[in-house]
């Protein structure tokens, strides 16, 4: 532990009597089901020290569940886990941590009220002789830790709650790193990181590997696993279906392993016959971030919104959606000026939003899947007095099929769905409104490749039928795959709009850096 | 003065300021306030003022202490106060030590203090007075339900025990049901009487020691037991009096609050001017027991 003063070395002491060549952890026949719904059939997995294993699979394949079992957060229904050749059983997560397993969860869980340094030391804060917290020591160690994971830019004195999602993610990674674990599990750690942050993070992973840590890396970004991992394990329908070396495989192959079918979305040339302007923004400003943004989106068009972190994409979408007050400027829908003071008014006018931040702004965690999907369109379908409860059931069935939502029953709490499936439910919610304008904010965060192409397909199909889409995204390939045009924001200003023909990764990025 | 029994002496001292500290939360306090106003009117002719200081609507020792502290800070010459609680003795002594005499009225705690005098009804003997009346009404036998305001409130407990000790000693055939706490609430008294009648259909009298006796009377009325079950309690407030007329209430003991307020203020004034001590350290006020005959 670094609190004992060993901050600089990232390795474990070699354990006497253990052959370095034997697996650190060996899982055999792991099975798990929830209320009769089988999630893991019989998964076998070996992990060796000094190895980075990429774990791939569709949403709901059981990746997070398997990791919870390995780390002690869940108990398997069947199967055994051995560490260093010894049968092991963790009753709680704390047991797992004790044994050297650190798990960075898919969902963020920093303590917003504490500073970054305090977060990193929670559970074992250093003390001065007088018995107080040794803030100086804690800060110094925090700086070292943050540097280690490539997050040197974060001030350890800041309150963690005020940081961006990506920065919070890095804090969690740093925290896990600080434990110098034997096994480090990273469940979609990069989904909210900037490209620059991803580089720093990769550097840390490589250093940890060199020091002998076994690492499991879960992501839906195939480029990342191909770049970073030593071995790729694909989980499909609760069983391991393939193990490959990155050098010996391709993107396409992995997708086939994951989904059982080759799936990739290619941009299809589309004509937008309708010249009606569906959404127009004129010199839109909010209180503090956006400056004079003017933009027109035609009916049936898919308009991308690109920018670096902090460019103001979320703010812009929120202004259109009425969630953030418009300070000046005009917004018009099909030529009619509107000023939404509340998202409820926007939804009534046919503007639906799939927000960024599934856990905080997307799901209603204690509600069922069905209720989550229905919440936006309750008023649309209600009778005079009563809510259309029966209709909710059929609509849910419909959208489960259309979006391929994987669940046991639509009455299960949404928080028991896998991350990607939760996102699909939020998508279903927005589509149920039958909007004329769909605002998407990082809609494919944590969504698997198969589902991504499903979602692209759905968005394109709806656009074909006249839906206007404005999609904020940090992934250029996504923009290239889907959008007819892209607007690029840079520090709250509109840096420019590129048409299909003008779009290229280079140009988009260059424009995004314009104000920097 | 009208309604009072003590006359003021000629003021030879220059302006005199008296603070009159009292609560205000139910009709009982209305005559107290009026008495203080009357004292002010009367004494203003003698170059003295009686300032009514409201201690609020929640009765507590802390409020009395804060009130006296405030009055001392404002340099009043004397204080009339409704101390009620045991915990007020210390601050009363402190005021007295500072040369500000304190006159207690209505009710004071059991702990002795160096107040100039206390005027009021002794709660225990008031309880006994009611107990005698109850025994008479019940012919010395039968079941008596007891509802007290707050468990642990000295005045309520003394009124209760004053009656119960008397009854136990002299009328062992009277069976006591309770006591139950109604927190001075009429609606709670109502429910308690309902339940008491369920468990004791032969109940013939209910004694409410503090707030809300009319709730008990209303329950008697709603149960159609007027004339069979009687309620006794304290204070001539309008809601209580109403049931005295209709017969559910059979006895109400009054504390003559108006007179207490007025007389105490004047006596304190006299003491401040020429050192006339009140007639005794404890000036008992014998309550007037109203019965249905009195209002017919």
């Amino acid at each position, binding site marked *: 532990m670094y609190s004992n003063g060993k901050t600089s070395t990232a390795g474990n002491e070699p354990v006497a009597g253990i052959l370095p060549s034997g697996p650190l952890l060996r899982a055999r026949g792991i099975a798990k089901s929830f209320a009769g719904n089988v999630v893991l059939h019989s998964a076998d997995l070996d992990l060796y020290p000094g190895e980075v294993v990429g774990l791939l699979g569709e949403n709901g394949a059981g990746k997070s569940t398997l990791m919870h079992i390995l780390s002690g957060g869940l108990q398997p229904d069947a199967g055994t886990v051995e560490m260093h050749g010894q049968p092991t059983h963790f009753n709680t997560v704390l047991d797992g941590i004790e044994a050297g397993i650190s798990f960075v969860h898919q969902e963020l869980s920093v303590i917003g009220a504490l500073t970054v340094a305090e977060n990193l030391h929670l559970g074992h804060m250093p003390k001065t002789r007088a018995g107080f917290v040794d803030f100086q020591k804690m800060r110094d160690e925090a700086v070292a830790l943050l540097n280690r994971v490539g997050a040197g830019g974060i001030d350890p004195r800041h309150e963690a709650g005020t940081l961006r999602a990506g920065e919070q993610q890095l804090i969690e990674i740093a925290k896990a790193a600080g434990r110098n674990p034997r096994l480090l599990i990273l469940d979609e750690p990069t989904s909210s990181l900037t490209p620059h942050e991803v580089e720093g993070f990769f550097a840390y992973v490589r250093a940890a590997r060199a020091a002998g840590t076994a690492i499991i890396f879960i992501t839906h970004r195939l480029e990342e696993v191909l770049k970073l991992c030593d071995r790729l394990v694909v989980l499909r329908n609760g069983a391991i279906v393939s193990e490959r070396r990155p050098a010996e495989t391709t993107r396409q192959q992995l997708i086939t392993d994951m989904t059982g079918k080759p799936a990739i979305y290619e941009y299809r040339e589309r004509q937008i016959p309708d010249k009606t302007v569906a959404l127009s923004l004129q010199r839109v400003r909010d209180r503090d971030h956006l400056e004079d943004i003017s933009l027109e989106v035609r009916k049936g068009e898919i308009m991308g919104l690109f920018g670096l972190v902090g460019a103001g994409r979320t703010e812009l979408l929120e202004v259109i959606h009425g*969630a953030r007050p418009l300070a000046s400027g005009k917004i018009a829908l099909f030529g009619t000026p509107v000023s939404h003071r509340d998202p409820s008014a926007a*939804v009534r006018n046919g503007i639906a939003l799939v927000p960024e931040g599934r856990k905080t702004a997307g799901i*209603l965690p204690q509600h069922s899947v069905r209720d989550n999907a229905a919440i936006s369109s309750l008023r649309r379908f209600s009778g005079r007095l009563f809510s259309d409860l029966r209709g909710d059931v059929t609509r849910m069935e419909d959208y489960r099929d259309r979006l391929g939502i994987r669940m046991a029953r639509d009455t299960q*709490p949404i928080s028991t769905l896998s991350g990607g499936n939760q996102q699909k439910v939020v998508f279903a919610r927005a589509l149920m409104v039958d909007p004329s304008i769909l605002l998407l904010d990082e809609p494919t965060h944590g969504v698997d490749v198969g589902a991504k192409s499903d979602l692209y397909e759905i968005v394109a199909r709806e656009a074909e039928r006249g839906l206007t889409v404005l999609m904020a995204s940090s992934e250029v390939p996504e923009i290239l795959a889907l959008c007819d045009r892209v607007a690029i924001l840079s520090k709250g200003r509109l840096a420019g709009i590129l048409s299909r023909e003008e779009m290229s990764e280079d140009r988009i990025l260059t424009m995004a850096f314009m104000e920097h | 003065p009208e309604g009072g029994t003590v006359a003021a002496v000629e003021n030879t001292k220059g302006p005199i300021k008296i603070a009159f500290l009292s609560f205000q*939360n139910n009709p009982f306090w209305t005559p107290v306030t009026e008495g203080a106003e009357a004292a002010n009117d009367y004494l203003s002719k003698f170059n003295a003022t009686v300032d009514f200081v409201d201690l609020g609507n929640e009765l507590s020792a802390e409020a009395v202490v804060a009130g006296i502290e405030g009055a001392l800070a404002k340099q009043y010459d004397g204080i009339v106060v409704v101390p009620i609680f045991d915990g007020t003795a210390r601050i009363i002594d402190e005021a007295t030590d500072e040369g500000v005499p304190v006159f207690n009225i209505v009710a004071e705690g059991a702990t002795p203090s160096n107040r100039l005098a206390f005027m009021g009804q002794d709660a225990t003997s008031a309880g006994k007075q009611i107990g005698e009346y109850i025994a008479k009404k019940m012919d010395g036998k039968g079941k008596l339900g007891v509802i007290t305001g707050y468990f642990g409130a000295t005045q309520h407990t003394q009124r209760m025990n004053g009656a119960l000790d008397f009854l136990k000693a002299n009328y062992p055939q009277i069976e006591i049901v309770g006591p139950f*706490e109604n927190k001075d609430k009429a609606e709670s008294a*109502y429910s308690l009487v309902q339940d008491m009648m369920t468990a004791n259909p032969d109940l013939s009298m209910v004694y409410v020691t503090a707030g809300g006796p009319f709730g008990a009377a209303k329950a008697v009325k709603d149960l159609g037991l007027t004339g069979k079950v009687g309620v006794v309690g304290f204070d001539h407030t309008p809601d209580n009096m109403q049931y005295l007329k209709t017969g559910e209430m059979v006895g109400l003991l009054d504390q003559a609050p108006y007179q207490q307020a007025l007389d105490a203020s004047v006596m304190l004034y006299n003491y401040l001017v020429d050192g006339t001590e009140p007639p005794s350290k404890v000036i008992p006020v014998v309550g007037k027991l109203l019965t249905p005959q009195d209002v017919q």
Partner: protein
Amino acid sequence: MSQSLSIVRDLAKHREASVLVMLAAVAIYLAFASDYFLEPRNLLNVGRQASVVAIVALGQALVIIARGIDLSVGSVIGLSAVVGAILMRDTGSETIGLLGGLATGLACGVVNGLLYTRLRINPFIATLGTLSVARGIALLLTGGIPLPFGGFAEFVGAGRIYNIPVSFLLMIVLAIIVHIFAVKTVTGREIYAIGDNPKASRLAGVNIRSIRLFVFALSGLLAGLGGLILAGNLASADPNLGVGYELDVIAAVILGGTALSGGRGSIIGALLMALLNNAFVLLGISAYWQVVTKGLVIIFAVGLDGLQRRGDDD
């Protein structure tokens, strides 16, 4: 996280069950210990005694479900009764008096809602403020002196239909209505959504301001109704009516297991408390033990199921 949430749900489910068990236990014990307990008349008395707390708790439950709290209900009870009585006295019309009382409750609720949604005052503080202001106004309006309050209100508060107390019937009917409202209507479902995740609900198009305003208004309205029943029962509108009710009402809601409660829960909670008071009188429990017992029963009612669920935190 996912596990912890389902535990929260289970907990709310079990809580209701464990309070029901406690309710049944007390009732069964009483049935043996007292000859009078099972008499229909006594049971109906218990129902009536629970009715005001239960009716006010129906509104409070929705407020709490939507993540608010309404401490002002006790004072609103008093103010509504007083305004109703004054209007009845001055206009001579019972209808105006009753409607005026209800409107007062509603107005108090709306004020609470606006303080919360417009001025963004924490509902605990906002309703603590109106608790004081409403009580003060009731005292000012009456000079602290109770007013007579009779007629139809007295029928509602103390009357009986086929021997069943009107206020008890009203409680049952309202509980059913509120339950259906909470579970089956759009607004009801939106209330639950807001309570679950206000931010997500807002972005999904729920008008959280108006829903919040609505729940506070409803809570005020039901407190106003409670005031009319209480004053009607006593045939007297006392400005001090309802002092301290807030804790009883909130306790009823929580005992009833808010999460599920739409309506059922609140009644169970209120009944348990009324039953206890009934038990004290029927069994003649000695004075101070009443106070102790009340606390113990509340703790046990909820603690029962905690005993089985050892082992897991949060």
